[in-house]
């Protein structure tokens, strides 16, 4: 479904964010990007969302080079992706309800569908009583859950979640993981970027470790720490 072919991204200040990334993600897969802050996880996600252009290499999505898309075709591509941004990126002038409804309006859903689906999505993330609140009236955790509701409402082909449990307590984090697992079971490919060890260890899915812009590990059904480093610790 997604193929990174020797992708590098250098910034104008000569700071290289990711180097020679070769990565294939299959349809329906649940993949976890791990690594310390500044390792390049978010850059990879930005490249995938066409928010940034690679300096070298190509990214294919269902066989299409996404950075060759015409400007008019970019929205249709992005509508196939649900994103939980690290900084939430909520619409400040819209209520909780309207933020979720906006994603549905974008793909041309009818008002009746929106009325039926949005309350369910808000209930799923525990915001059913905050429908009329504006983002600045919500706590950090509530904003994060709202971002999740917006990302999953259209049952996208791909769900990108950048540190979706960053502001949540352990109980709420588990709830978010359950939602991500559920949506993955329904056929959505999920890319989760996190440096939360508990999250990765609970999931035990494919783990791609990124360090200083390089992929240093790519293992199926893995934990936060690889077997070798675990063995080292035991010794």
């Amino acid at each position: 479904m997604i193929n990174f072919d020797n992708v590098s991204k250098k910034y104008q200040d000569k700071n290289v964010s990711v180097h020679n990334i070769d990565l294939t993600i299959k349809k329906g897969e649940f993949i976890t990007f791990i690594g310390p802050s500044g390792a390049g996880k978010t850059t990879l996600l930005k490249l995938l969302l066409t928010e940034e252009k690679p300096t070298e290499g190509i990214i294919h999505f269902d066989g299409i080079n996404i950075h060759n898309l015409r400007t008019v075709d970019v929205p249709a591509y992005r509508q196939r992706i649900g994103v939980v941004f690290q900084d939430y990126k909520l619409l400040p002038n819209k209520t909780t309800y309207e933020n979720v409804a906006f994603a549905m309006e974008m793909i041309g859903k009818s008002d009746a569908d929106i009325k039926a689906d949005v309350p369910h999505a808000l209930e799923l993330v525990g915001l059913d009583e905050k429908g009329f609140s504006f983002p600045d009236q919500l706590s950090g955790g509530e904003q994060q859950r709202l971002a999740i509701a917006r990302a999953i409402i259209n049952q996208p082909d791909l769900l990108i979640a950048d540190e979706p449990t960053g502001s949540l307590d352990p109980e709420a984090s588990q709830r978010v993981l359950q939602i991500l697992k559920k949506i993955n079971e329904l056929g959505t490919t999920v890319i989760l970027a996190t440096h939360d060890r508990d999250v990765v260890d609970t999931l035990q899915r494919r783990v791609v470790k990124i360090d200083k812009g390089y992929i240093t590990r790519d293992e199926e059904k893995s934990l936060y720490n690889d077997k070798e480093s675990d063995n080292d610790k035991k010794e």
Partner: protein
Amino acid sequence: MSLKLDLQRIVREGLINFWRNKLVSFSTLMIVTMALLMMSSLLFLNAVMDFSLKQLQDRVDINIYFFPDAPEAEILGLQKRIETIPEVKDVDYVSKEKAFADFQERHKNDELISRSLEELGDNPLGASLNIRAFESTQYEAVVLSIESEPVVANSEFVERINYYDNKTTIERLNEFTHVVRLVVYGLIVIFSLIALLVVLSTMRIAIFAARKEIIVKRLVGAEHRYVRGPFIVMGILYGAFGSLLTIIALYPITRWIGNYTKTFFGGMDVFNYYLLNFLSIFVIVLAIGVIIGVVSSRLATRKYLKV
């Protein structure tokens, strides 16, 4: 997505944003209103200038003076022919009797003249034709046409045509009119541009405040029209409400200024002009307001749509 639903959502969002961003909407609306007031005052300036120049030009005329013994039938015949010249607005015939009566009336307090007239016993004045053209620049052509008339060219009836006495004055007036028009049109263009730039900058600031929203919308897959549309709706609202406020504000302003223009500019009352042309002024101001609103919101959003 159906076009109707699309449009409905864009308009709804524009209206909601206009209402929710009260402070930004209010300040933008005030700036748009000020700009429209400035532009409409230029409309009034143009009208006052036209009126005043017209008044000035209407005071210019040319006269053909006939000898006292010129037959009236010849003069009336000539009057008919002059009236057919396209540039001629009207021709007044002043008979020798009327000329004499007017002269007497003018000099009734001058004993010397009164006594001289009594001694003469007869009317020494001739008849005259008083000719006015539509524009002061047309007198040259009118005089040429008149001079080609056989009655004028080969006749002993015509004493003189006063165009040549007034030629320099008429030419100066034409030059003055031309310069005044140029200056006023220049002012209109300059101040319209200033008003346009002020509105554009204000809209840029208003949209700069919403740049994050635009970027987020783009990132979650909103199409250009969906991102830009609500801002254009807001631009239309600024223009429409701005023109409404302008037309309301013009009522007391023109009423007050009208008192002064009545005495200064040859009798033109701008308040009366406002009342008589209310609908056309409103339509012009509304059209300018809406066009400025749409153009400036389009320009101001362009930068952020590249994401």
